[in-house]
């Protein structure tokens, strides 16, 4: 439920708030659902990216990196003997 609300808010924040706010919300939602950061990144670039404005779609790349890091940390925690 909380994850769903955070996902909805981060997608809305892409339109309504400065991008760092959307990024923080996406990272918060990704703590429980890693792919959300990537999804929000793709969504933000779908709306705003232009080849003339940036070399790479930073939000897709950034979202993918956040997702990978969170997946990695979660997998380490799951395999850890300390729970």
């Amino acid at each position: 439920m909380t994850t769903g609300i955070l996902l909805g808010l981060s997608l809305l924040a892409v339109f309504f708030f400065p991008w760092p706010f959307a990024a923080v919300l996406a990272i918060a939602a990704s703590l429980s659902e890693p792919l959300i950061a990537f999804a929000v990144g793709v969504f933000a670039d779908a709306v705003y990216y232009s080849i003339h404005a940036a070399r790479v779609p930073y939000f897709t790349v950034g979202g993918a990196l956040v997702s990978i890091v969170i997946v990695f940390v979660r997998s380490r925690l799951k395999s850890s003997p300390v729970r």
Partner: protein
Amino acid sequence: MKRTFLARRNALFTSASFSAGTVAVAAAVFILAIRLLFPNFFWTMLTPAFWLSSGIDNASHGFFSGFKNTAALSLRNEALESENAALLNENRALADKAGALESLSGGIPAGVISRPPTSPYDTLIVAAGRKSDVAVGMETFGPGGVPVGVVTDVLPDFSRVTLFSSPTLSFDAWIGSKHVPVTITGAGGGAFRATLPRGAEVSVGDVVTVAVGGAAPLGTVVRVVSDPSSPAATLSIQGALSPFSLTWVSLRDTGDAFVNALSWKNADSL
């Protein structure tokens, strides 16, 4: 038969993340596909959200400014009311002349539906496109005829303007009354950077001018960083207009000279 092993769990595709995470990615990719295949429909669909965002932005700005010193605001309010009455009369006279002036300048007025910092790449989305005779390479001017960017994408009803402050863009300009030539690079958020020899006669407050539709003021030097060990001084330039508050712009074709001289980091030209 009793199973002697546990199903291996995948950290990426747990049942929970498959339901929400992958659906979110699939939806985002679907939206991306709509933008790539039907860009004009995409922007038409999103325009109400951007207008709503713009309205909320303006309303919240007014709300938060109300928390400032109320006594000072009250005095200022009285002064502004009397000024307002005088300006209303003046405005009526000027409004009559505005139409004539607009036709002389040849500018295409366009509402800004997305601007920084919501738009993260130093771009504007404006509600005028091919149907309004907008073309790639047109210069974009803010209030007071201040140049703010160049049109880089045009759709039937919308256009994307890359601001001159985009870090991907460099162009020639002049600084101060002595017209010191300099190459300006965008620094994002309506700011610019430039490097000059340390001996160049440039100081804080000097106006930066570009050759867009004549000589147009782009901004002001706000900081000169000069390291004694370096032969060069770095200038910080603040744009004359903040892209964060642009609501209307004018699109004009002032010739190819300036646009062709723009240096793009990502592309050879427009």
